[in-house]
């Protein structure tokens, strides 16, 4: 008993620095955002005195709802596409010989050597009405000459998937690397077809990696701002863009904070759900 309680105290002491760090730079600022959301704006771009629900109430606005809906489906869809692409890639990465493994991992990591912004601008060039992709697709008759590849939600999904694919491959690969592939042979031996073995045995076996991968795309995608700003256009706007507009264009911090509150809650909700589900199922472990 005493031993245990001393152990508890020691654990608390050890975690104190990170707790302090997290409180100072995450929890406190978040609470500030929550507080500002309840303040009125003043005409000079500052924060007025008193408290009000107006900012939160004003969110119930068809314009915002449309943007929120678009943000949600772009994030879900991007996460789904990433998952569908990353799972087979992770599987093969875990199965190829060590030499090829190193080569493919290099291929995944090399794009990070170029700045994120530059890579997104590169997409803008590629998707441009005068760009190569557009011309090829138009010539082959797959799209009409008037169809725009740029400045729509589709372009946002494409670039989001491009950006976050490596972050989904890596956790899935890490989980697949630990997977015992003899289990697939056992499943086949017991009568499962290739796909059945993959779905019934492999996917549950790398479940942790899949959850991590989804969170790695879904959460940043919900808050993404740069990608829709550069390739999205008005029809590809997401909540992140709205927040930026409230801050930089309208100079209305309380309104921006109210939007942020919605975003923060919608990011925390899936995280907490996953953690609760995992705790229920087994002893908590790291997501990786």
């Amino acid at each position, binding site marked *: 008993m005493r031993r245990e309680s001393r152990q508890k105290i020691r654990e608390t002491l050890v975690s104190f620095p990170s707790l302090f760090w997290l409180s100072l730079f995450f929890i406190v600022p978040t609470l500030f955002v929550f507080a500002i959301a309840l303040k009125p704006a003043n005409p000079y771009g500052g924060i007025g005195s008193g408290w009000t629900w107006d900012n939160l109430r004003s969110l119930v606005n068809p314009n915002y709802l449309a943007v929120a809906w678009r943000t949600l489906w772009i994030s879900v869809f991007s996460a789904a596409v990433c998952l569908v692409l990353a799972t087979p890639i992770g599987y093969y990465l875990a199965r190829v010989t060590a030499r090829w493994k190193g080569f493919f991992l290099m291929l995944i990591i090399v794009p990070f050597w170029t700045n994120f912004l530059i890579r997104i601008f590169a997409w803008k060039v590629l998707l441009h009405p005068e760009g190569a992709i557009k011309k090829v697709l138009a010539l082959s008759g797959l799209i009409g000459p008037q169809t725009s590849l740029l400045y729509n939600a589709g372009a946002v999904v494409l670039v989001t998937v491009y950006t976050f694919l490596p972050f989904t491959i890596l956790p899935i690969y890490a989980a697949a690397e630990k997977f*015992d592939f*003899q289990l697939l*042979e*056992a*499943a086949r*031996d*017991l009568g499962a077809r*290739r796909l059945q073995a993959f779905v019934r045995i492999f996917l*549950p076996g790398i479940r942790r990696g899949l959850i991590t991968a989804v969170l790695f795309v879904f959460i940043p995608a919900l808050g993404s701002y740069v990608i829709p700003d550069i390739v999205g256009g008005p029809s590809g706007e997401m909540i992140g863009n709205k927040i930026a507009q409230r801050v930089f264009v309208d100079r209305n911090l309380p309104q921006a904070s109210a939007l942020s509150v919605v975003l923060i809650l919608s990011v925390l909700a899936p995280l907490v759900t996953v953690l609760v589900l995992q705790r229920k199922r087994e002893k908590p472990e790291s997501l990786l």
Partner: protein
Amino acid sequence: MSEFLEFRDVSKRFGTIQAVDSVSLGIKKGEFFSLLGPSGCGKTTMLRLAAGFEHPDAGRVILDGQDITDLPPNKRKVNTIFQSYALFPHLTVWENIAFGLRVAKRTKRDIETEVEAMLRLIRMGDQAHKKPDQLSGGQKQRVAIARALINKPQLLLLDEPLAALDLKLRQRMLIELDMIHDQVGITFLYVTHDQGEAMSLSDRIAVMDSGRIEQVGSPAEIYETPRTSFVAAFIGDTNFLEGEVTGLVESEYCQVKIADIPGLICFNDKSMKPGNPVYLSIRPEKIHISRDRPEESPLRNIVPAVVEDMIYLGSTTKYWVRTHGLRVQVLRQHFRFFLDEKPIRWNDDVWIWWHGDDGFMLDRYRAVDEHLVALPPRKVGEPEDNNEKS
């Protein structure tokens, strides 16, 4: 009876390693058949060829008259028990056992009755809800057996299923496996490197080395009449004696000169002629040892020797004696214990003798196989790689 599982001239190569080298082998229905050999001899590849995890480079695999060479594992009426059990970690015992029936889309009621029956067979009804990592090694083993048997395979493949268990559990599982084989009556193909397991369970054994089958036979045939030096040395202990036929005795025996010992009698089942070289394998327990010279008898070979090493093992004692420059291993069973008996000690002069039928002529001899024979313990100060081997 015709063959139930048949390998026809099967070969399989991995990179530069010829894992299986044009092997032909037939296994009968209902048989408990073992593939025995050292690691890397190709026995596991044979099993994987039967399961369908590997495709042979050449040759065919026939099961019950049907060519299954090109069938994927899920289309074969064959199930495997893996060395590491390969239980699905995210499924309970119950779900593991039910897996085969579920992918076969059997009805819920069918699955329930059959899984319950299997749980009774392995006596684990009360553990059904547990996950594999909550089970002991022996329990995992039993679940693996149930999971494989529920599909009612025509052939059960067992890949060193007892290797991961401790000695006591292994002995118990040996008995259980034997009982299960008697109960379900299907053909077992058992892969092991443990001669004890193979000998005690099998109806027949195929001894493999370097991708080839050295000999196929019942445990007693393999032990008593090894055809090659590899089989003789891999299964049990033996003495290899190189000699030359010098004459024939009656029709069935011949005289052999080994080192400079002339006139040793040996059963001549290979119809050797005078002048032919022979390699004999004589099991240590077939050689007798005593201080007193034994009586002469027509087919008895009697040789004087000096004791070089000995290990007392309780029920037996192992001696290494030297005679005419040869080192011979002798295993003596203790029948009676007399307090006043003068025991055989180091450097004692002794007599060793064996019956002419107990020296068995090998078809093929390779010097490297001598390494498989148990060597005497090293003496203090003796160089590590002594020249006894060569």
